[in-house]
């Protein structure tokens, strides 16, 4: 095949698309675009769910590196020394301790059992985006005592009756209201609600936060121990680098990167998602192949007489085959382009309207590589699906074609 033959084949393809059946061409482009969207939607949604859960766990639970007690120990001890050591390491943005205590919250006639998390608010700001999630009131200050921030689901909604609530709440606490908290050790006191937050992550949204100073009053002693420490890496430093540094510098507790933690907790879920993605991709590819094969087969069958005539006047069968091949290439390029646009629009829509469950919220997670890979796969599939019937019909003898 020379340049001349390819040019002729391209002209035949282009004119067939320009002046042939518009509805057929538009339908084919739409089918390819839908196949593309179908190929990318479910895997992106599952990736989005995985990414969302991962991000929320990192943001509100473990940060980049988690330091927690070794087996057999209840707490990370010698807290101030440990924090000073970690905060002094290069690559560490900030390390901050966490201490939780079970408590009963009381507001008017409502009683709710939950976990109170003690944090150092200023340090926490450098590690977790919790302070950006305030929906009412304000975030905690380091020296706040007798003040608390509540998750929106914990605060509740005064317009919803208790029996109609999806999950128990305090029935509509507002900023400035006073609630009573009775801790597991019997310590009881009133707190002023300083702020209400909502993160979208179920564990954070089932809790309430007080300051470290406040929890020391609850415990009745200086809190030189913590349930765990979360460590934020500086930009440009990997969690693995920070973990290795911590171990090298002699941090005696268990040190794990967020990936280590997630692999344990999320590994099986993410593997299941990967299987679903593969099945979805395979089904989409089969559907695309079959649809395009049928479309091009119908197109070639309808053109058998014309193909016979073209061969009769000296047009080589390879030119005819490539004429249909080019049509498929042009149709699939247009279909893929439309598919990319639809997918990106869907992505924007899902950003504003994410899939929300009680435990997490997620939107699509689409990377440029996803778009490129799916485009290449769909393009390759289109070529095969288009060329097979074109090859078959181009080999038909002239007499059969002209008599069709």
């Amino acid at each position: 095949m020379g340049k001349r033959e390819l040019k002729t084949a391209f002209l035949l393809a282009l004119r067939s698309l320009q002046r042939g059946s518009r509805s057929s061409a538009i339908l084919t482009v739409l089918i390819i675009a839908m196949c593309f969207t179908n190929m990318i939607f479910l895997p992106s949604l599952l990736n989005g769910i995985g990414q969302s859960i991962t991000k929320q766990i990192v943001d509100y639970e473990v940060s980049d590196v988690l330091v927690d007690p070794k087996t057999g120990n209840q707490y990370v001890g010698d807290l101030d020394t440990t924090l000073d050591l970690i905060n002094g390491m290069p690559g560490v943005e900030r390390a901050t301790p966490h201490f939780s205590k079970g408590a009963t919250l009381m507001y008017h006639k409502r009683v709710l059992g939950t976990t109170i998390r003690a944090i150092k608010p200023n340090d926490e700001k450098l590690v977790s985006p919790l302070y950006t999630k305030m929906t009412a009131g304000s975030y905690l200050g380091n020296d706040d005592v007798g003040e608390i921030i509540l998750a929106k689901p914990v605060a509740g909604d005064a317009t919803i009756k208790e029996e109609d609530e999806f999950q128990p709440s305090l029935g509509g606490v507002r900023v400035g209201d006073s609630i009573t908290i009775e801790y597991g050790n019997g310590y009881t006191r009133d707190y002023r609600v300083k702020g209400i937050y909502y993160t979208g992550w179920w564990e954070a949204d089932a809790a309430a936060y007080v300051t470290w100073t406040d929890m020391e009053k609850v415990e009745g002693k200086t809190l030189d121990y913590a349930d765990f420490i979360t460590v934020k890496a500086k930009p440009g430093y990997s969690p693995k680098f920070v973990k290795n540094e911590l171990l090298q510098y002699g941090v005696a507790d268990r040190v794990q990167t967020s990936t280590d933690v997630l692999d344990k907790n999320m590994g099986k879920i993410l593997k299941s998602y990967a299987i679903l993605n593969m099945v979805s991709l395979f089904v989409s590819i089969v559907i695309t192949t079959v649809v395009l094969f049928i479309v091009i087969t119908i197109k070639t069958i309808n053109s058998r007489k014309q193909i016979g005539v073209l061969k009769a006047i000296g047009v080589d069968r390879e030119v005819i085959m490539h004429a249909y091949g080019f049509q498929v290439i042009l149709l699939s390029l247009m279909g893929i382009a439309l598919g990319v646009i639809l997918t990106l629009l869907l992505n924007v829509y899902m950003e504003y309207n994410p899939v929300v469950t009680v435990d997490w919220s997620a939107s699509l997670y689409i990377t440029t590589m996803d778009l490129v890979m799916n485009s290449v796969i769909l393009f390759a599939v289109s070529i095969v699906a288009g060329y097979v019937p074109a090859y078959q019909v181009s080999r038909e003898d002239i007499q059969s074609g002209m008599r069709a």
Partner: protein
Amino acid sequence: MGDVEVKALDGVTIDIIKGEFLGIMGASGSGKTTLLHLLGLLDDPTTGRIVIEGTDLCNLTDYEKTMFRLYKFGYVFQDYALVPDLTVMENVSLPAMLRKDRDDQKILDDSHDILKKIGLFDRRDHLPRELSGGQQQRVSIARAMVNKPDILFADEPCANLDSENSRMVLDLFREINEEMKQTIVMVSHEPWHQEYFHRIVKLGDGKVISDEINGHGK
């Protein structure tokens, strides 16, 4: 019931002389279209030979036959057989585009020349469906002539035309034959067409009934 073998042509031998306007005539089923298709390499004979300027065409590969049709032959079919999605100009220049000895300017010039000759230069940007049957057949003739073939084959080119358009097409064939010394082999069953032919081969039941110089050929 098994397949019944039918001999469409039986013992036919004819010579085509360069520059002549040869008419192949006969009743329906006499084998005239089959003969034209064999001569034009559109079909393969079960036995026999087709020799043009010393080359036995039956020994050519499929690709060689395609190239032979492209470089040596032109075809006009009874249903015009134009590509519906191409304009008149594109239809006419299509066979020339595939020839390695034609550059873009030559293709353009030859296509314009032949369109002017058939009187449809002004309609060159129209699609076939925008033309009358007679005009479409003239475009088909232009497409067949653009490569200046050695032989122009025409298979009942007036079958779908009224008598006025038929005469216009036949006049065009005669003009091409006389002015360009174009060899034309045309199949027809219309008795009045024979006035245009130099020579008439009549077929019946797949055999040559007569092969005569037409004294009335204009």
